[in-house]
């Protein structure tokens, strides 16, 4: 007897697409849980998600996985193909929810008789529509910030009479908050409202009662079909109202509510979820509380699983997404067991006997010019979570989990000035916490800081406590066990202790600590504050008394995760870590995961055999290793306790950076040795590997002064790629074209000195850039995939689109690439994964860079070639050979470079966060800026590319006006694709210079005014005016030289972002886009599942195996129009 609904046999899950700011890999976590539950329930599950880097798009998680754009059009095609009984859209973030609403509005759900489960359309609307939601609050008698929409000054004054001051003014439909602000009295209101009305294109301003500076709380609530409701977690924001909760430091459970206030909040939350009509599943409800009076107002609710629910799940051990899925299938909370205790039901509210702190991770250094002030518009790219037995321990663990230079709270450097620090403490920004601590050290009292910042005095006092503990530590006559314990109890790291003491190193502190027996214990996240025994080994460290690690007797492998998502290190690395857990568990090991990112699948307690939610620092990892060694098979002195080794290759730069120090501390590192990793990164040593193998790298040199840099540049020849070894002001690499720009770069972006040399590389023109992921076992090479980049010169590989199979490489090229890759693998001493970046220029193959570790492209390659590359890598690292894995069936005969000719073309496209950073130029460069990626799959390149664009940015236009304006060096490459667009019926708009070139080549175009020309005598619009007027459908604008606000191109690209118009910044992308547009005009584009694509590849492999024929090689004579492609040396990892 199953209590679940028997009328649902097949479900389509909508995913959340690429990682963007505000919607990160938490939805991979929730989606993966949903798919697992649905599969366990015996349902036929299909999925649509365009993001190949996710675990959820692994083909084994669904019967049919559609890596297709998440748009109503494509999802309708999937529904038509799959004919599911139900659609589940509440686990795929806002993207999935919006798509579900669109499908409903278009009548698609009705047409195919598909039921939306989880939340109804009415509930979604009631939760999401501000006016409807206010109606909900009115019905249940819940308070909210009152507001009024005004169109005149008099209306505003009248509204103020009802609402009272201060007021927030929000002009409608302005970007970047133009015209908004606070009015504290009528005079201010009168002057500001006029400006606000003028700033609004519709002459409307929302006048709202201000809750800025109030305390902010969230409740994660679940409801089942019998109307049983529970609060899974309460969360309190350390940052008061005014900062997006995703950008706030948050704490669970709530710290500063009495039971009376908390229960009122809980009652309101339940009333909201009931009135909104979320019949089953999870919701998140946000509140603001006036610290002076306790008045509570409801801010908003999300009728779906959210970022906060992922955090709440990890914080409590209560798996919200999994349970939401079961509730959607008709189970009730009491019918679902609590996984952690196994004997109690899920119909309860978790009780925490620890404190959880989440801190967002920002990437402002990647976006010079972006405003670092935090507002209600989310700007962070990732987050960390830490657990401790008290707030101070959790906070300091979280801060060091950020892995951001200078983030750790500093109690050692000289005390600064109040005048410097207080303004920084007042302004919400990415380093506000640190500024508050420094302001406190400079002498500002808790009370003054509370009134200046709005941060609750309790939190501020905890920071004061840290200061006192640090002072005691500094003043202790000697660093003894008591002094160490006192500091450790409040989360001070060995690094901090060393800095505070001043006369010892981090390693000294650790050795002393170990000698004195001052070690952390590991506690368990058990949902119930120890009331019941936990069956799930989900641990965190604390300097407390009793350790809870139980012994085991299987050999153990510790896998280090990738830490917080940031630009350059995202879900792709979590994917590889998770695969290692699966593969090594299956191979008979106990897998032990260490990570601090709450958004991930790797930090799900049932991904690994044991989970340690810990910072990825040397100190914290060593303690985990020690705990595992203690609890192992024999566990005696000098015994490894069954710990076979630590995997550092799969989690990106974070674990890689720890490898050598772990090894030096006696920890076995499996796979490629740390020395080999270092060898690949060290130019001189790597140069010798290349020389020995007869391979070439682009000419390069290291300059220790400006003159040296010029000399090297002259020797190599411009353009050159320059990058600092020491970064100032967050600037990284740039391509420079002459002495002047080189000088400017060095002036502006870095300092050059013998201590801080600058690297100067030849910049290869007209080169094809190629990315390779391969596996090497010491003897044999398995070429996982060869990817050909679409973008031009100097674009970071993480930001460029690429195609697999490679579109224009011939058999000979692939053969040379294979040989070169194998030579490098052998020379470096790789055991496991290797990523190599090549440039093919003329007939020369240049090696740009080799990284002996999992790369960002591993999941894409795995999905494009139907090979579990990360799993195989994990096995190879622990000693399996490629031959063994072929014999097991994990690896196929042949490899990823021997795909059949009828294999689908897979295009990976990067997704960039421009819209989040108003005013930042949208030009791609050597510095990686993308947050995520999508994959377009189809039989032909044009269609695959078109799909990738649609998934990333929106559909390519098939008609209308295209504006072209390119740098001189791109003009030759512009003619052919532009002519094709004109032939297809596009009207071509061009600035005068470009128009002239086009006219000479027989391409008709309309001349438009540059921005710098200004409007014409009769008000003729500039191109920027036209873009804003919606008169341009496609923009092609390639930059020259330095980007910046003074240039026309900048204004054009910025306008494109504001208006959401596709803007191609390379001629190669234009070439690909033309193919895409042709494909779109060519007729109906279909959808197919990954399983269908893989069947083609597998069938071909099978027939080759049977016939023993030579494997096919990808086509050598593709006709893609493309210009130069070239290389970049990457500083921040692939």
């Amino acid at each position: 007897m199953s209590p679940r609904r028997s009328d649902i046999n097949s479900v389509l899950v909508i995913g959340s697409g690429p990682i963007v700011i505000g919607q990160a890999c938490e939805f991979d976590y929730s989606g993966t849980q949903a798919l697992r539950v649905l599969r366990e329930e015996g349902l036929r599950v299909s999925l649509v998600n365009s993001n190949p880097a996710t675990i959820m798009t692994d083909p084994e998680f669904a019967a049919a996985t559609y890596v297709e754009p998440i748009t109503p059009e494509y999802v309708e095609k999937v529904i038509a193909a799959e004919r599911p009984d139900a659609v589940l859209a509440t686990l795929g973030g806002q993207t999935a929810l919006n798509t579900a609403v669109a499908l409903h509005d278009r009548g698609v759900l009705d047409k195919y008789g598909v039921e939306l489960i989880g939340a109804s359309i009415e509930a979604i609307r009631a939760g999401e529509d501000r006016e409807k939601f206010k109606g909900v609050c009115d019905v249940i008698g819940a308070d909210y910030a009152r507001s009024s929409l005004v169109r005149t000054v008099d209306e505003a004054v009248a509204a103020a009479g009802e609402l009272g001051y201060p007021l927030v003014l929000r002009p409608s439909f302005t970007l970047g908050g133009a015209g908004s602000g606070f009015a504290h009295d009528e005079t201010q209101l009168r002057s500001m409202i006029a400006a606000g009305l003028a700033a609004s294109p519709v002459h409307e301003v929302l006048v709202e009662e201000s809750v800025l500076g109030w305390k902010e709380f969230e409740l994660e609530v679940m409801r089942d079909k019998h109307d049983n409701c529970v609060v899974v977690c309460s969360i309190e924001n350390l940052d008061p109202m005014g900062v997006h909760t995703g950008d706030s430091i948050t704490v669970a459970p709530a710290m500063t509510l009495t039971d009376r206030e908390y229960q009122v909040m809980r009652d309101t939350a339940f009333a909201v979820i009931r009135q909104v009509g979320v019949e089953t599943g999870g919701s998140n409800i946000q509140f603001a509380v006036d610290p002076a009076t306790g008045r509570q107002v409801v801010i908003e609710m999300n009728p779906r699983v959210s970022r906060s629910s992922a955090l709440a799940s990890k914080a409590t051990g209560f798996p919200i997404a999994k349970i939401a899925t079961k509730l959607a299938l008709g189970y009730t909370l009491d019918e679902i067991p609590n996984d952690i205790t196994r004997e109690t039901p899920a119909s309860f509210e978790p009780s925490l006997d620890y404190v959880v702190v989440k801190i967002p991770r920002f990437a402002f250094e990647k976006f010079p010019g972006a405003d670092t002030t935090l507002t209600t518009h989310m700007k962070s790219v990732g987050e960390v979570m830490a657990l401790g037995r008290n707030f101070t321990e959790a906070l300091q663990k979280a801060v060091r989990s950020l892995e951001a230079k200078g983030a750790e709270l500093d109690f050692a450097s000289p005390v600064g000035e109040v005048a410097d620090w207080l303004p920084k403490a007042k302004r919400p920004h990415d380093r506000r916490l640190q500024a508050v601590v420094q302001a406190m050290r400079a002498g500002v009292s808790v009370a003054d800081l509370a009134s200046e910042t709005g941060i609750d005095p309790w939190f501020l006092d905890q920071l004061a406590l840290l200061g006192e503990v640090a002072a005691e530590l500094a003043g202790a006559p000697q660093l003894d066990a008591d002094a160490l314990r006192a500091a450790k109890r409040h989360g001070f790291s060995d690094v901090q202790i060393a800095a505070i003491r001043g006369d010892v190193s981090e390693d000294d502190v650790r050795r002393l600590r170990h000698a004195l027996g001052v070690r952390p214990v590991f506690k368990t996240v058990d949902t119930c504050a120890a009331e019941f025994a936990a069956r799930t080994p989900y641990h965190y460290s604390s300097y407390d008394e009793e350790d809870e690690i139980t012994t085991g007797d299987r050999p153990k492998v510790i896998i280090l995760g990738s830490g917080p998502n940031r630009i350059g290190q995202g879900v792709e690395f979590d994917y590889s870590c998770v695969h290692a857990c699966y593969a090594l568990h299956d191979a008979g090991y106990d897998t032990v995961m260490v990570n601090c990112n709450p958004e991930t699948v790797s930090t799900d307690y049932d991904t690994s055999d044991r989970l340690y939610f810990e910072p990825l620092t040397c100190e914290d990892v060593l303690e985990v290793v020690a705990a595992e060694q203690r609890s192992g098979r024999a566990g005696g002195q000098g015994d490894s306790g069954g710990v076979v080794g630590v995997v550092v290759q799969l989690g990106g730069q974070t674990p890689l950076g720890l490898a050598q120090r772990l090894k030096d501390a006696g920890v076995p590192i499996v796979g490629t040795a740390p020395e080999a990793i270092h060898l690949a990164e060290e130019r001189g040593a790597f140069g010798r590997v290349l020389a020995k193998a007869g391979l070439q790298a682009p000419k390069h040199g290291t300059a220790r002064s400006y003159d040296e840099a010029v000399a090297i540049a002259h020797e190599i020849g411009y353009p050159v790629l320059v990058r600092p070894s020491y970064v100032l002001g967050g600037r990284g690499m740039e391509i420079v074209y002459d002495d002047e720009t080189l000088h400017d770069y060095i002036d502006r972006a870095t300092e050059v000195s013998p201590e801080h040399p600058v690297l100067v590389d030849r910049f290869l023109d007209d080169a094809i850039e190629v990315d390779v992921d391969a596996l090497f076992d010491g003897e044999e090479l398995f070429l996982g995939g060869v990817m050909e980049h679409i973008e031009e010169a100097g674009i970071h590989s993480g930001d460029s689109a690429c195609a697999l199979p490679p579109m224009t490489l011939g058999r000979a090229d692939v053969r040379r690439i294979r040989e070169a890759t194998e030579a490098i693998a052998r020379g470096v001493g790789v055991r496991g994964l290797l990523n190599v970046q090549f440039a093919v220029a003329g007939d020369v193959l240049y090696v740009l860079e080799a990284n002996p570790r999992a790369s960002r492209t591993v999941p894409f390659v795995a999905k494009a070639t139907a090979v579990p590359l990360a799993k195989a890598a994990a096995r190879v690292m622990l000693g399996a050979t490629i031959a063994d894995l072929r014999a097991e069936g994990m690896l196929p005969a042949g490899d990823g470079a021997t795909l059949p000719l009828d294999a689908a073309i897979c295009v990976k496209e990067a997704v960039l966060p421009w819209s989040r950073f108003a005013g930042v130029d949208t030009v791609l460069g050597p510095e990686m800026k993308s947050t995520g990626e999508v994959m377009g799959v189809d039989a032909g390149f044009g269609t695959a590319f078109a799909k990738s664009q649609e998934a990333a940015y929106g559909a390519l236009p098939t008609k209308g006006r295209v504006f072209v304006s390119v740098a001189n060096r791109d003009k030759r490459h512009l003619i052919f694709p532009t002519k094709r667009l004109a032939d297809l019926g596009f009207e071509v708009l061009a600035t005068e210079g470009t128009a002239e070139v086009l006219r000479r080549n027989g391409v008709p175009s309309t001349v438009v005014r540059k921005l710098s020309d200004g409007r014409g005598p009769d008000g003729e619009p500039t191109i920027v005016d036209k873009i804003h007027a919606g008169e341009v459908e496609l923009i092609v604008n390639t930059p020259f030289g330095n980007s910046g606000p003074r240039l026309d191109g900048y204004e054009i690209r910025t306008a494109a972002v504001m208006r959401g118009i596709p803007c191609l910044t390379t001629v190669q992308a234009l070439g690909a886009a033309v193919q895409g547009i042709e494909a779109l005009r060519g007729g109906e584009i279909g959808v197919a599942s990954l399983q269908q694509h893989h069947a083609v590849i597998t069938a071909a492999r099978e027939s080759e195996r049977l016939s023993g024929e030579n494997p096919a090689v990808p086509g050598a004579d593709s006709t893609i129009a493309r210009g130069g492609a070239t290389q970049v040396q990457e500083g921040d990892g692939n």
Partner: protein
Amino acid sequence: MTEPAILVLEDGRTFRGRAYGAVGETFGEAVFTTGMTGYQETLTDPSFHRQVVVQTSPHIGNTGVNDDDPESRQVWVCGYVVRDPARVPSNWRSRRSLDAELADQGIVGISGIDTRALTRHLRERGAMRVGVSSTTTDVDALLQRVLASPGMAGADLANEVTTRQPYVVPALGEKRFTIAAVDLGIKSSTPRYLAEQGCEVHVLPATSTDADILAVDPDGVFFSNGPGDPATADGPVAAMRGVLGVKPVFGICFGNQVLGRALGFGTYKLKFGHRGVNQPVQDRATGKIAITSHNHGFAVDAPTDREATTDHGRVVVSHLDLNDGVVEGLRCLDVPAFSVQYHPEAAPGPHDATGLFTSFIELMAAHR
């Protein structure tokens, strides 16, 4: 820093920390509560009389002490164990710090110990006697005093916490009913809920007989929560028998155990009890689940698989705890009486079960 303090359990397990609240020495039954909010209500709940309460939630005292939230006239716990006491209270209703309040009321506490280790110990070994001292560091001597202190089984404590004199809580708004509430350790939220529904509540001492109760001419009789072993509550049980079938009856917690005994069921001591605000209780008639506030170390032993027949007619177990299947409510089918083991008055805890007060009102209305 405050004085060092030690905590010694009767089985010898020892924890070392720092004094919190009053400096001194105290003995009682060690129990843990898992509520993350509501320490002020917990401390002033008379059911905690003679118990040393361990808070599993590490940060205690953050919102200070106010004058609105106490559930009785004083702090009743006899010892308090926390990990990280607040240094600065922060709440607009706060009047003073918890530390000062405990010191004023002479409550000996200890802070800074591994409360989770202590909780796990109590979970595995059961609630047991404990001593907390900030006046000695001699563990063995303290252990001897712990072993000499009385246990909870067989303790008759209602008389120690009850009101000495009857008093009346007036109805809010129009008076609709008169209730006699036998104070076995009543929390002030209970009369407040009843008063809000138009009941005039006559709170009577625990020693009240059925005659005393009926003397106020009530529309219904309420038996409150309270501390100690229900097996000792012969007086209240006799009073309960005297009013069953005469007036509608509602009991909470100890009152549930008194009803159970009056009906002829036994009571027994749970290994470590239910103390917290997150317990799932199912109403067996509707299947609905309430997340409820609990504070009980004893439970009623009644059959859960069938109706029982008693001197007062048929009785069913109306509510069960879903975590461990413990009886959480009784309902008489032939006389107007029902009771629950948990706390619909919450304080601290969720308001999910406040409807039970309305049920009592309805029962009284039906039997007037």
